[in-house]
């Protein structure tokens, strides 16, 4: 059986790889760079308190990868940054954002801002992939597995002088089942938090934002959803005051149910929405929040 080295940057990621590994028909070993997952896959724990910059650990990861047929990771900025460098060291092919497996060396991935999907065939001794977990349903085996420490040499390279930190207690966008996103019409950071944050909290969901909302300073950087930013695939995506630029739509297309709330009936977001409500978000979003809260009380 082919062997996969699954590189993880957070403790939740290994749990998202079950469906992908099954489809690839390969045996998984996890290389945990950030937090040790509790899954049924054997785990190699690098023991880092925080994942070091890619250029300082890529050579060590590449060395370890030589014993595997595939090096894979859940798509993220961190994964693409590290695995592209590992691909350079090993001179192996890399396909990012895989959404379908057509064979041991044939994969599908989105191109041109999600306008099309490309199937590529790769050649080489080993293959490196990042994948979108929403395209590969299935869970990782549960239960205990072997865990051993692995020592990865940290080489000189770039130095982090200030770490990014996620604030607040809401779920992470990449894993959230429900996401409520807002655009620039929210006008201020206070209204954004009150209206978008309020509905998200009523639904136990995460908050997202458009690039325009982030650039105008009413939502923070890490909330940006879209081709630049996070690609998301929640069960429910509610877009309030979002017109639906190509790059934003490319980031939400895999959501199960999309709700659009917008004053402009011609907004492109309505073309992808399962439910469209043409209305002023300042009136209907608080009303929706209230109805959700009442339901919660009634249950």
């Amino acid at each position, binding site marked *: 059986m082919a062997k996969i080295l699954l590189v993880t940057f957070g403790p939740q990621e290994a749990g998202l790889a079950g469906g992908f590994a099954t489809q690839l028909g390969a045996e998984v070993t996890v290389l945990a760079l950030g937090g040790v997952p509790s899954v049924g896959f054997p785990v190699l724990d690098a023991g880092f308190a925080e994942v070091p910059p890619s250029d300082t650990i890529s050579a060590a990861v590449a060395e370890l990868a030589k014993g595997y047929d595939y090096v894979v990771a859940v798509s993220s900025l961190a994964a693409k940054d590290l695995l592209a460098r590992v691909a350079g060291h090993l001179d192996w092919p890399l396909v990012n954002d895989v959404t379908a497996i057509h064979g041991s060396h044939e994969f599908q991935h989105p191109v041109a801002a999600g306008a099309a999907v490309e199937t590529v065939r790769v050649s080489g001794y080993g293959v490196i992939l990042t994948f979108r977990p929403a395209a590969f349903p299935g869970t990782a085996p549960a239960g205990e597995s072997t865990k051993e420490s692995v020592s990865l040499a940290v080489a000189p390279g770039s130095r982090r002088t200030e770490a990014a930190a996620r604030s607040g207690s809401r779920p992470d966008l990449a894993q959230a089942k429900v996401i409520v996103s807002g655009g620039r019409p929210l006008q201020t950071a206070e209204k954004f938090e009150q209206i978008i944050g309020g509905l998200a909290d009523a639904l136990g969901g995460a908050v997202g934002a458009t690039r325009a909302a982030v650039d105008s300073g009413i939502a923070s950087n890490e909330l940006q959803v879209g081709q630049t930013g*996070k690609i998301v695939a929640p069960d429910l995506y509610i877009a309030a005051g979002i017109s639906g630029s190509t790059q934003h739509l490319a980031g939400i297309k895999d959501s199960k149910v999309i709700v659009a709330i917008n004053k402009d009936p011609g907004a492109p977001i309505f073309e992808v929405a399962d439910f469209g409500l043409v209305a002023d978000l300042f009136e209907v979003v608080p009303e929706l929040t209230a109805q959700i809260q009442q339901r919660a009380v009634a249950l």
Partner: protein
Amino acid sequence: MKILVPIKRVFDPYAKVTVAPDGQSLEAIGAKFEINPFDEIAMEAAVQLREAHGAVEIVAVAIGGSECEEQLRKALAMGADSAILVETTDALDSRVVAAELEALVRELSPDLVLMGKLATDGEGNQTGPRLAARLGWPQATLLSSLSISGNLATARRETDLGEEAIEVNLPAVFTTDLRLNEPRYIALPGIIKARSKPLARRGRATGVTAQTVTVGYESAPTRPPGQRVNSVTELVAGLTSRGAI
């Protein structure tokens, strides 16, 4: 200080891209070709570094067919001092491009390579780090700010959690994200001046072949049409019946 800026020729990123009838290529009917927008940001960043530091030489490079001259002329109009076209009709993937860029870097010895985080057509997302690994240089990707003092670059970069600050010694490979800058409008004098700047054509330096070949393209699956609702109550009812809440 010398900066190498690799430039890719892509469809106008705002054009509607469709799959050609034979399924073997993408097309954008009537669309123009442009510099990959992330590479344009890299070009702007290079020009801003020259404005801040004075003695900075900027070399733009493209790899591909003779038609890439159009984008190199635009890079020259933006402020590159010279341009190199590595002319080839070979199939190119990130591996080939990184190998060709590596050869150029070893020949020209720039202090920085400044390039887009990805190209908007193929979205390979890997050439910068691949090149850095081949060179054994540090990398700083997805930049939202960059400043250089002597041999030290300080930068902010986009991460999954927001933004982090890093510092890195030159030489290094940098890739740009959208927030780094807004490329300037090219004024007519720049376009005229670009015509007389040197643009050298040459062949490939390596025999490296592509590892990734396109089997075909399909249109992205479209979502079935949804329904309009007229009130919040109707919306809640609809979401409830779909099991979404």
